[in-house]
Each structure stands twice: as structure tokens, then as C-alpha cells.
């Protein structure tokens, strides 16, 4: 992937997160290019962006060849890519979407990802999130924009692999501290 010379917002929390037990695995995801895509709702039905149709059902996301495509609103999506440099991805999408009246804006610096997995992952998240995260209600492919603790997040269900949380970079430290506290009861004593 493209090498980005930046300090990860969760670098200072990485050691503490790594000490959590296997029941609550929290791993920061590396930087990825993210582009906010706006397409008029009328033109979005069946529209394929970079080879993948836009998910038009509310609160869903679909995997793409090298990233994710997340529904953010009836005319708004978040597209991530691990294989493209942010400004090139923005240009590529802008060229593709211009004919249908869409826009693309690079928002790579806005959010950072966290992966939460393990048998207790759902219980940890439930401490600060009011959404029903049971696999029946929140299966793989579902997403939600909501609050976790006091931070606004985009929550993605990865099915068996747990959850991905996209949080604003400036809130990432707060959320990591919150998650460490929420996961404390599953850390064995001694």
C-alpha cells in the first residue's frame, strides 16, 4: 500500500491495547485512503463505483476489491482503499462521478479504523452503544453511524471477524481509553 509518513493517532495506545486478552482483541487498522462520495439519489441506483455497485440500502456496507464502501446517507457514501494514494483515488472517483452529477472529496485524514474482535467484543461495545449488535440484528454487511461512549463512530459488522469502528482521528485516543476501560473486566487478575 501507499506509504504515508504520518504518526498513527493510536501509537501511544498500541502497547496497552495489545495487552488485552483474546476475548477482547482491539487492533488499530493502518491508514487507508478514504473518499466521501456524493451521488444524487436518483442516479445512485445500480451505479457501480470502481467495479462495485453502491450499497443503496440504509445502514449497509459492501467490501470492494481493496477496501470498503459504506452507506452514510441516501446520497452519500464512504469509500476506502488500501491500494491507492488518497489524492489519486479522489481524482479517479471525481472523473468517474462527474457525468452523473456526483462529487468526491478526500477525507482520509478524518477517520481512523479500529478492529474489535473476540468472544466479548459485542459486550464491550454494548457498554457504550445503544444499537442491537446481535448477529441476528447486525449481521455481516450491516453498518451504523452512531455514538460509542461519547464519540461519533461508523460501526461496521464483519460477521465472524467482529467489528470495525471508524472514528475521527482526534477522538481516537479518547475511544481507545474508553475501550481499554470497557474491556478491563475481561483482563485476568494477576
Amino acid at each position: 500500500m501507499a506509504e504515508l509518513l504520518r504518526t498513527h493517532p493510536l501509537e501511544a495506545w498500541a502497547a496497552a491495547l495489545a495487552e488485552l486478552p483474546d476475548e477482547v482483541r482491539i487492533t488499530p487498522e493502518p491508514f487507508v485512503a478514504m473518499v466521501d462520495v456524493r451521488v444524487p439519489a436518483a442516479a445512485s441506483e445500480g451505479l457501480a463505483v470502481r467495479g462495485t455497485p453502491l450499497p443503496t440500502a440504509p445502514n449497509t456496507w459492501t467490501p470492494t476489491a481493496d477496501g470498503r464502501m459504506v452507506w452514510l446517507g441516501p446520497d452519500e457514501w464512504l469509500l476506502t482503499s488500501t491500494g491507492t494514494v488518497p489524492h489519486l483515488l479522489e481524482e479517479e472517483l471525481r472523473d468517474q462521478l462527474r457525468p452523473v452529477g456526483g462529487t468526491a472529496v478526500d477525507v482520509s485524514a478524518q477517520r481512523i479504523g479500529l478492529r474489535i474482535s473476540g468472544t466479548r467484543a459485542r459486550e464491550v461495545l454494548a457498554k457504550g452503544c445503544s444499537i442491537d449488535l446481535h448477529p441476528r440484528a447486525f449481521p455481516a454487511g450491516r453498518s451504523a453511524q452512531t455514538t460509542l461512549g461519547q464519540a461519533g463512530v461508523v460501526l461496521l459488522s464483519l460477521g465472524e471477524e467482529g467489528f470495525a469502528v471508524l472514528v475521527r482521528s482526534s477522538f481516537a485516543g479518547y475511544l481507545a481509553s474508553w475501550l481499554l476501560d470497557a474491556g478491563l473486566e475481561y483482563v485476568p487478575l494477576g
Partner: protein
Amino acid sequence: MQLIACPWCGPREEVEFTYGGQAHVPYPDDPAALSDEQWAHYVFFRDNTKGRFAERWNHSAGCRRWFNAVRDTTSYRFQRVYRVDDPKPVTP
């Protein structure tokens, strides 16, 4: 805490939403033709209904879309939510 059903996202906690005042207040067709008093009425004057009231709400912590809702101002219960382009529902 009560749940508010966002027309896009479904039921969510009340803290995710922001209040936007009375709904169905149309922008004047020809604002320049209004007198100061008429303009003040458009900008500042709102109903203060006791009972069912059509209001604007924004799902600010979620999809960030505006929608309308009919809420009972005495019990705070939401009776109906609908999209901004839908007509005001007729409630009994």
C-alpha cells in the same frame, strides 16, 4: 430515554437527534415584497401548540438528514416520522 425512528436509519436513541423547530414554514415566494413586520413573522413567529405538533428533526449523530415528525408536546411521544418531501400527515 425514548427511541426516535429516523426514516433512514430506524429507531435510535434520542441523544443522536437535534431539534429543528416547527415544520412546514414555507420560505416566502417574494421575500423582497414583504414588509418588515411580515418578514419578522416569517423569521421569528412560530406556533406554540399544546398537543400534536409537526416539527423538524435532524439525525445529527447518524445520517445527518433532516426529517419531519409529529410529536405530542404534552407527552413528548413521537406519533409519526416522515421525510421532508412528504406532505404533513393528517392526524386525528
